[in-house]
């Protein structure tokens, strides 16, 4: 009688442990997928492309990029976000990177990341000459 009860309890405990492990594994998978490097790069590249598209000439915008700097691995801060032609390139590690194009033909410049504040400045100027004279002071 006692042995049988013990058996049932062991089976139940094993079952509960397996269920918890299963739920934990699924939860871990979802968390890992939602915070992957590739996804962060894509989200920020698209965010910046939309911001640049919507900015009118002669605008300077300061944007928080704390999540981005925290995930950057072996990449200098001034290389994390770059503008190449009419594309935003976000790179969090040497083996990854995501770029997305914007249609705003104005001259776009991105400053260096302010490490203390965790922000970056984006400037949009109509003329190339004007943009070259602009200093984005951190």
């Amino acid at each position, binding site marked *: 009688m006692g042995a049988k009860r013990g058996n049932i309890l062991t*089976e139940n405990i094993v*079952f509960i442990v397996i269920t918890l492990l*299963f739920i934990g594994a*699924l939860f871990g*998978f*979802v968390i890992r*997928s*939602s915070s*992957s490097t590739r*996804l962060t790069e*894509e*989200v920020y590249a*698209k965010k910046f*492309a*939309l911001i640049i*598209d*919507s900015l*009118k000439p002669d605008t300077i915008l300061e944007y928080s990029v704390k999540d981005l700097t925290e995930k950057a691995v072996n990449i200098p801060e001034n290389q994390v976000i770059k503008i190449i*032609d*009419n*594309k935003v390139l976000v790179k969090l590690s040497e083996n990854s990177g995501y*770029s*997305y*194009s914007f*249609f*705003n*033909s*104005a001259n776009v410049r991105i400053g260096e990341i302010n490490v203390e504040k965790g922000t970056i400045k984006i400037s949009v100027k*109509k003329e190339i000459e004007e943009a070259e004279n602009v200093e984005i002071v951190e």
Partner: protein
Amino acid sequence: MLKLLNKKGDERVLGFYWIIVFVLIAVGVVSATIVFFDSYDIREVEASILGDRIVDCISENGELRNDVVDDLQEGDLEEICGFNFNDDFYDKNQYYVYLNVNGISENEFSKDGTDNLWPLCGAKDVKKEDKPGCFDKKIMILDKGEFILVELNVAIAKNKQN
């Protein structure tokens, strides 16, 4: 006969069903996660921003800029309104814009067959991966003291990235 159906056998069958339930839940959660976090589709927002920028281009303080509308009749939308639709990621142009000012001036920007994009916006039998991001707007703008109707349709493909 009843003696054959012992409890152990029942539990084993139940265990088998539990494994099936676990597998089904795992497949559901994993596939939902992959689909949800696969890519963010921003084309509708992008199209709406482009639409707003075109309206800004053809009007100033709520008044129609007739000079710009006239230029658009013969000139290029990219050049006149300050856009750059080039994208190295794709071989072809990915943007379509249709602008109708009061039925008098009609302007369509399409390259590399993007005029086929707009009909896909309302189509129901189109696969999700082939559907463009669409935006349409009808607004009234002042022209010499009178309101005129401006119709704008924008479609953006960029299917591989969204």
